[in-house]
């Protein structure tokens, strides 16, 4: 079952109010409206979400694995860059 004609879409699901949309997976669909419905059928049938985004995969610009080091390995000797000096008040979630 290859569908070479149908573009690929990336699916983002917001699991609860207050949280961000999180990447859930991808699917094929002929257009955005059906991509949204397919996403509902594939990813939110068991109450996983309250909101869905679909984005054409072709619209996503991704970082390249070759650029891993300059992108993702900040110098660890500059502690002021890392927000580790705060006490998180009790009761604050999702921080």
């Amino acid at each position, binding site marked *: *079952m290859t569908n070479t004609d149908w573009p690929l879409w990336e699916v983002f699901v917001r699991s609860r109010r207050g949280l961000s949309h999180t990447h859930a997976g991808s699917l094929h669909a*002929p257009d955005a409206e059906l991509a949204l*419905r397919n996403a509902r*059928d594939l990813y939110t049938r068991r109450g996983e979400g309250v909101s869905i985004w679909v984005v054409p995969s072709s619209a996503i610009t991704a970082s390249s694995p070759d650029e891993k080091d300059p992108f993702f390995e900040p110098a660890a000797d500059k502690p002021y860059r890392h927000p580790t000096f705060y006490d998180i008040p009790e009761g604050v979630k999702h921080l």
Partner: protein
Amino acid sequence: MTATVHTSAALALGDDALVLSHRLGEWAGLAPVLEEEVALANIALDLLGQARVLLSMVGDEDELAYLREERAFRNLQLVEQPNGDFAHTIARQLYFSTYQRLLYGRLAEGQGEFAGLAAKAVKEVAYHQDHAEQWTLRLGDGTDLSHERMSRACESLWRFTGEMFLPVEGVDVDWAGMKDAWLESVSDVLRRATLEVPQGPQSGAWTAGAGRQGLHTESFGRMLAEMQHLHRSHPGATW
């Protein structure tokens, strides 16, 4: 549940859901794309859930599903029609889900024994109708080939649509009003899909009221044989 009329109503609505659920389940492994296969299976599972509630009002759900003869089923002939091509499946979905949404919407507003089930199911059915509508628009207003196939499907299933509005004993709704609403809704979708609203009769002389009276079309026997053979070969089997 005490009055027989209500039992026959639960049987009619339950059989509609059960039989259509089985037909949609036949797409598993065969649907044009994986995403659509999941969509059809989801709809089938919604219907199976409705069937279980309704048939349990009548008796043992397994006995009713697996051990009844063809003549004892009270489903509409529309829902037993073979899947055909994808367009046929979608046309059947459009006709039936529009009907079911109107029916359950009315039942949910009432105080009858089906109000609870209907209130829950009407949300599921709204999605079934949306799914059928989305596909009808795309197939009807798609390529020449998809338009032709969708048009043929709508035409060939049209003669099974009249039976939906023959009053079911124990279901207290305005059937004539529901028929008008159904025609308006389906016509609107077909027009937007650049399809003609079929002009032929909504029932053949030989189909009138038949499914609700236990008379079914040829392919139904084969479907039942497939649906029931495992249970009949191994009575009472569990896992």
